[in-house]
């Protein structure tokens, strides 16, 4: 009897335990499953190789002429904010990893014998000597940029005339008096635009420059993470993170469906002095027009005040978060890729509760410096089973071209670097 009773109590305890176990907890365990880093999909003829994994928040990357990969980290890895990945035995994977630069950030680039990198406040450069960077050559070239956490990444690119371009994102969604507060009106004029919300141009070789030493090259830009100097067109191009929360801020004017699909993520070709409209206007890809933001009196249709704002040269799905732009100049990939643009989409969050977008790398063909067709998904499968920022195994964030024309992709979620190569079928 005693035995039976013990059995009964034990069974009931088990029932009790499982009946009370949270369903969410079960779901959490499922979400912990990561996909294999190598499981990205590519067009026929292309293949990928994992160069390195678990590096931490790998933001932008640059590849040197000897094949060394420099990775800018958003969180320090063992005190290092920049990692150098070297493949000493030519098997394609990094077997010698070292680092320097004890600051966190996003931007990194190589130009004319210097490595450039940015924190969220400053831009630095390092002399490269015989393919070696020594940390003690660190020189601050731009300092004291606005950093209020929101949109604080300082992405960089360089032209061929000695200038560096730095994105200074607006620490705001739509320049409301009270940021992201329902119904709060937009400030007019928006004071943020004096020191942020645009691209600034500085000299690439001058130390300790501040705002006064630079030029506000383009304005009316909410936030850019992906930008690249296109040498064949001799112009600066960038892809914007568009505004959020239209229906949350103005529920009488916008539906959830509209918020999910508006505005487009805009690709810009930038001439000096260009104004792309933020925060007064946003681009509606369905009306194919810049329309007035609701914080400034807009109703979703009016274009008041947007007449002179510059339109994008291409419109991508809303909230997909383009985090890197690269114009491909190599000869390894087929002809159609030459001078076209690869864009890494970090993946959306502001489409919830609808399905999220992005988490991929796309290709946009170009001719004479302008898009010449529709984009196609080039690399996919980064997220794995759960296509959300939290559940995704990997989030594409950086792009770089190797000396042999290979494409490198970085991921700031799983810390993976992929090398993508092409081999024509025989």
């Amino acid at each position, binding site marked *: *009897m005693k035995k*039976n*009773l013990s059995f*009964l*109590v034990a069974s*009931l305890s088990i*029932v*009790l335990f499982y*009946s*009370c176990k*949270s369903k*969410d907890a079960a*779901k*959490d365990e499922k979400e912990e499953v990561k996909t294999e880093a190598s499981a990205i999909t590519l067009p026929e003829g292309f293949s990928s190789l994992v160069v390195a994994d678990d590096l931490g*928040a790998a933001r932008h990357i640059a590849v040197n002429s000897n094949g060394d990969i420099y990775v800018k980290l*958003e969180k320090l890895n063992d005190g290092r904010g920049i990692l150098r990945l070297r493949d000493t035995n030519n098997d394609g994977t990094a077997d010698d990893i070292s680092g320097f630069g004890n600051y966190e950030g996003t931007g990194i680039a190589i130009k004319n014998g210097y490595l450039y990198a940015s924190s969220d406040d400053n831009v630095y450069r390092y002399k490269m000597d015989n393919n070696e960077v020594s940390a003690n050559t660190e020189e601050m070239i731009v300092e004291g940029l606005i950093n209020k*956490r*929101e*949109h*604080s990444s300082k992405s960089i690119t360089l032209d061929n005339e000695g200038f560096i371009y730095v994105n200074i994102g607006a620490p705001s969604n739509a320049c409301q008096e*009270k*940021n*992201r*507060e*329902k*119904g*709060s009106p937009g400030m007019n004029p928006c004071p943020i635009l004096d020191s942020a919300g645009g691209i600034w141009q500085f000299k690439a070789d001058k130390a300790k420059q501040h705002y006064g030493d630079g030029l506000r090259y383009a304005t009316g830009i909410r936030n850019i993470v992906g930008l690249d100097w296109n040498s064949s067109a001799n112009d600066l191009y960038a892809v914007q993170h568009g505004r*959020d*929360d239209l229906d*949350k801020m103005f*529920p009488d004017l916008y539906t959830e469906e509209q*918020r999910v699909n508006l505005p487009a993520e805009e690709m810009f070709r930038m001439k000096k002095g260009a104004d792309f409209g933020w925060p007064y206007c946003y681009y509606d890809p369905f009306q194919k027009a810049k329309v007035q933001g609701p914080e400034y009196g807009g109703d979703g249709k009016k274009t008041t005040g947007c007449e002179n704002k510059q339109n994008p040269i291409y419109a991508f799905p809303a909230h997909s978060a383009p985090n890197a732009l690269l114009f491909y100049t190599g000869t390894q990939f087929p002809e159609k890729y030459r001078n076209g643009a690869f864009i890494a989409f970090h993946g959306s*969050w*502001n489409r*919830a*509760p609808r399905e999220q977008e992005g988490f991929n790398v796309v290709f946009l063909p170009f001719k004479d410096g302008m898009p010449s067709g529709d984009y196609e998904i080039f690399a996919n499968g980064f997220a794995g089973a759960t296509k*959300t*920022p*939290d*559940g995704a195994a990997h989030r594409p964030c950086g792009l770089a071209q190797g000396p042999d024309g290979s494409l490198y992709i970085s991921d700031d*979620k799983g810390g993976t670097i992929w090398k993508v190569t092409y081999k024509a079928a025989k």
Partner: protein
Amino acid sequence: MRRVGLVVVTIAAIVVVVSCKNSVSASKMEAGKKVYAVNCLGCHMDNGKGVPRMNPSLVNSPYVMGHPNSLIELVLRGSEFFGTNKRSYNNQMASFHALSDTEIADLLTYIRNTYAKTGDEIDAEDVKNIRAKLN
């Protein structure tokens, strides 16, 4: 003997029911879920896990599990005045003072019992008192 077994089963069943019983009213949870969907889900996501480095997770968050008064104040004032997770998350949470006392009470009851298991309810009266103190 059989009777003893029956008593044990009955007691155990009561234990199961009592231990699993959600002391929070279903209608309050339902109302809170609606407020969450309109005001919070866009940033904190439907699973409450937020967006890495941008919007914090609510799941077992110390702010969610902590004293209800602090959570009420956070929602009424927004994160700017609170300094929450300043170094970890890029986005600030706006003030939601425009929501009614009942809406905030329902919302926080829902959050505390969905993304943590506090098992308690927040009353509109609590929100009203804290709002009065802040004003």
